[in-house]
């Protein structure tokens, strides 16, 4: 899509013109599942993302960190076009999921979302049974075969490390679970459609430390099987679970590289300040 059709309003010109993201070389050797290409986003007249250019490696866990309001959630929600629901949003640039454009006019957004899974900040199980929660993506595709549904349900719940806890009460309401279990249920729902990319939007921010630990273990286990992009405020979490970390600041991608490098020996001063806790 041609960016010139959506000119950025002049009042929000980038503060410093001499800026470019630092993307470490290790990423060049990775197989890429999603590539963000010069992506800009405006809420009404206010620009929130500036020319983000970022490859997401396949089969790895990539963490997005940065202070509040830096645009990491916005970027994440752009990937499965959840921002469509907000009227005032305009964009330029594009993203490619395994080579298929996400923002091209001919894309069917429903089909696009079926290729990804998403988990939100607060656990949002539907008011149905645990079983129905997990197989919801199949249900809306019209799948009726009980055997298929049961098989997918078990596989997803095992994948989300929840099977042993709920296998005897699949017909109970999803709302009867504890917070951490609910979040794992949401992860099970997100992976039941075999997504090409799993988007986690601060999945632990509403959970207690114990539940957080379990989710982190789960994310660690899912590595390799799924490509995961996780937004987090918690830098320890990012360093624990992720292979790569991207630091964003004021709508820009500042530095992006292997987590070990970002947290121990970052290239940029701002990254270093942030991961050392000097601001943010």
């Amino acid at each position, binding site marked *: 899509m041609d960016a010139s059709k959506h000119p950025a309003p002049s009042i929000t010109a980038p503060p410093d013109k001499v800026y470019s993201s630092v993307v470490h070389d290790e990423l060049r050797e990775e197989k890429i599942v999603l590539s963000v290409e010069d992506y800009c986003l405006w809420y009404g007249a206010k620009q929130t993302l500036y020319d983000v250019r970022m490859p997401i490696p396949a089969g790895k866990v990539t963490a997005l960190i940065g202070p509040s309001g830096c645009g990491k959630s916005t970027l994440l929600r752009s990937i499965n076009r*959840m921002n469509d629901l907000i*009227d005032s949003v305009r964009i330029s640039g594009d993203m490619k999921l395994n080579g298929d454009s996400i*923002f091209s006019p001919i894309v069917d957004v*429903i089909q696009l*979302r079926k290729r990804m899974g998403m988990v939100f900040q*607060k656990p949002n199980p539907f008011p149905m049974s645990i079983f129905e929660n997990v197989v*919801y993506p199949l249900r*809306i595709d019209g799948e009726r075969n009980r055997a298929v549904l049961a098989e997918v349900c078990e596989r997803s719940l095992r994948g989300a490390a929840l099977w042993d806890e709920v296998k005897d009460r699949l017909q109970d309401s999803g*709302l009867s679970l504890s917070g951490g279990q609910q979040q794992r249920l949401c992860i099970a729902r997100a992976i039941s*459609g075999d997504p090409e990319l799993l988007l986690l939007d601060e999945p632990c921010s509403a959970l207690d430390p114990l539940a957080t630990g379990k989710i982190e273990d789960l994310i660690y286990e899912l590595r390799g099987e799924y490509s995961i992009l996780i937004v987090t405020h918690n830098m320890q979490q990012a360093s624990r679970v992720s292979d790569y970390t991207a630091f964003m600041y004021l709508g820009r991608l500042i530095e992006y590289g292997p987590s070990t490098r970002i947290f121990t020996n970052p290239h940029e001063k701002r990254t270093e300040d942030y991961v050392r806790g000097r601001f943010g």
Partner: protein
Amino acid sequence: MVWLAGGALAFCLAMIASLLALILVQGLQTFWPARIVRFQLADGRAVMGEIAVTESYPMQGNEPQGNDPQGDESNKPQRRLVRTGNFELTNSHFQWITDTEQQQAPTRPEWAATVERVEWGRFYGEPDEYVQVVPRHLHEDETALTRFVQFWSMHAAQLPGDQQSMLAERLPQIQQQLREMQTVATLAQKRELQAHTSPGESIWIVLPSGESIAADSKDAETLVADRFERRWSGNQVAWQQFLTRHAAVRAARQRLYQLEKHDVGRINHEMERSRLAVRRSELDAGVSVSQLCATRLGIEQGLRALDQSWKAMQQQAAVPTSLRADDVWQNLSSAVLANLQSELDRQREQLEQDLEGNTAKIEKLPASVRDAVKEDSQQNAQASGQLELLQQEIDDLRAQSIAEMLAMRTADGQRPLIRVGEIVRAYLANQLTTFQRLTIYLGRWAEFIGGEPREANSEGGVFPAIWGTVAMTLIMCVIVVPFGVLAALYLREYARAGFMVSAVRIAINNLAGVPSIVFGVFGLGFFCYFVGAFVDGGPPNVGIASLDRSTWWTYLSVLLVVSGVGSGLLVYQLTRSRYHKSGWGTWLQVASVAIWCLAVYLALVVVLRNPHFGGLFAAELPNPTYGKGGILWASLTLSLLTLPVVIVATEEALAAVPNSLREGSYASGASQWQTIRRIVLPHAMPGIMTGMILAMARGAGEVAPLMLVGAVKMAPELPLDSIFPFLHGERSFMHLGFHIYDLGFQSQNSDAARPVVFTTTLLLIGIVVSLNVLAIILRARLRKRFQGGQF
């Protein structure tokens, strides 16, 4: 401040509680069988009845000082409203009696009875005598002889002179013979009756003149009775006999009522239907056959009458066995019969000729009309046969139900006879045990809830009104809930927030504040007089000129093209990507709005000026079928009235669905409709149910608009019954709210109706509460599903 607020709440609660308490107390005590009190008045009159109201009133100086049972310490004597009943004797149901009028303290006569009747309201009196009329048995010979005498008194003039004198000579002999026969028969039957008397019973002979004589008296041996009467005299004996016979007689009377109302009604309905079929075929073929049909009907009836009178004459002229010995009678009879037969044959010939002419004319009609006319004529013949059969049964039942009577002595000494078949319920008010009172009380409630009204609605039951109210409320719900929910879904889920949505929301809220009578006027003008009249008789019936056929087809094809273009535009707009709108967007929107406006206009023209639509009920015109008030229009009017309630409640429920659920669903790849259907609607269901409950409560209690669009004082048929098509949307109906208004304020006898008003109010409140409770239970069950736990 807390005291002010709390006080205001307490005041409101106290007012509501006292209103409910008043209705409860008044409504519940109405049916309790009260004791009967007898007042002896100073002016010599005596009054008996139930005390309805007791109140004090200020003494005035010029009041006559009478015997005051209250003593002198109170300066305020009391007066009582006494329900005296006996309307046919006194022309009033109630009477005020002041303490000063009374000669002595009121008494409670042991044998005073309360009698509830089908007509004339209640009767208060003491049972005095039970009378059962027994017709005199007629022997075959006697009947034949009587007929023969009648025959000759009518047709003697037809004989030649010499034979006339012969007849005149012999007639007195026959009459003498008849009289002897009758005396013997009377005596025999009297003996038989006397042999089977029960204790307290006496037999009376009623003469043709109406005079009655005790069967025991000496001159009763030579009398000819018209009928007999079995009488049980004395309070106790009469009452006992009444108790043993009442149920059977009442059952006969009710069977009679059923026959007259339902069976005869059904036959009339069939006849009306075949007449309408003729009318419909007439309209289709553009000819008029009503004159022909009427003539044919007259001829057929004439022929049937001829047959009947010929049979009757033959029967009359048959010589009775007792006279067979005398050959003269045979000759006389056959001579006169031959005369009569030739006369009848001439008439028959004439009628048959007419019939032939009539048939010829009918044969010339178009086939469809001819078939309908033939069908109608068959139907009529069949119906008159059925009616004859029914008439036999009806006559028998009527004779049974009027044969037994109870003589009641009133307080002022009159002694009218009351037909037992017309007594709904009777009891000795001052001899009842508490259990019996309770039985009567519950029986009255059962009649009230399950029975039909009588006595200008002031007595009997309100079942049709309950049925009408519930049916109307349910139909209203079925209409208003889907519409309201869809409208709210659009406003909350699909429409983009902006000026238009706010304007629509404000308009809806204002709609809730429009006085309900305005909705009634709208319903009458739009639904009854426009939509209803259009359904009845097509465009001409509502004053719209139909297009000619070719123009209409042109309009239709233009409409199809325009709506096709509109749909195309719509689909194009919907499928365009959200991020790639071009500058054409606004123009496209304007264009599609214009095109849709045009399409709506064309659709209106095509529907309203359709030359092919002549109305569904054109045959009944000028009598309207749907073009008047009916339960369908009433339900639609109330749906409009309650629409804002449903929309507002549903919108609130939709707004309360957490956005995170919607996002979760979208992220799982669900479309907007799938999200709404699987996530949003189930979650909002309890709130939607709340809206439905509020709408039902509002709709069931509404009266003003119903008066205009279909509620009536007395509806002969239920709007929802077991006859196809079960729901009769065109029928007017009874409604409890309207019933209350009618009883309390439109009744000629509102004093008598007042207790029933309270009871009806209680019932209406009860129905509204139980409909609400039902919906609340449903809602609670739904809500449980969304708060964890088992499914």
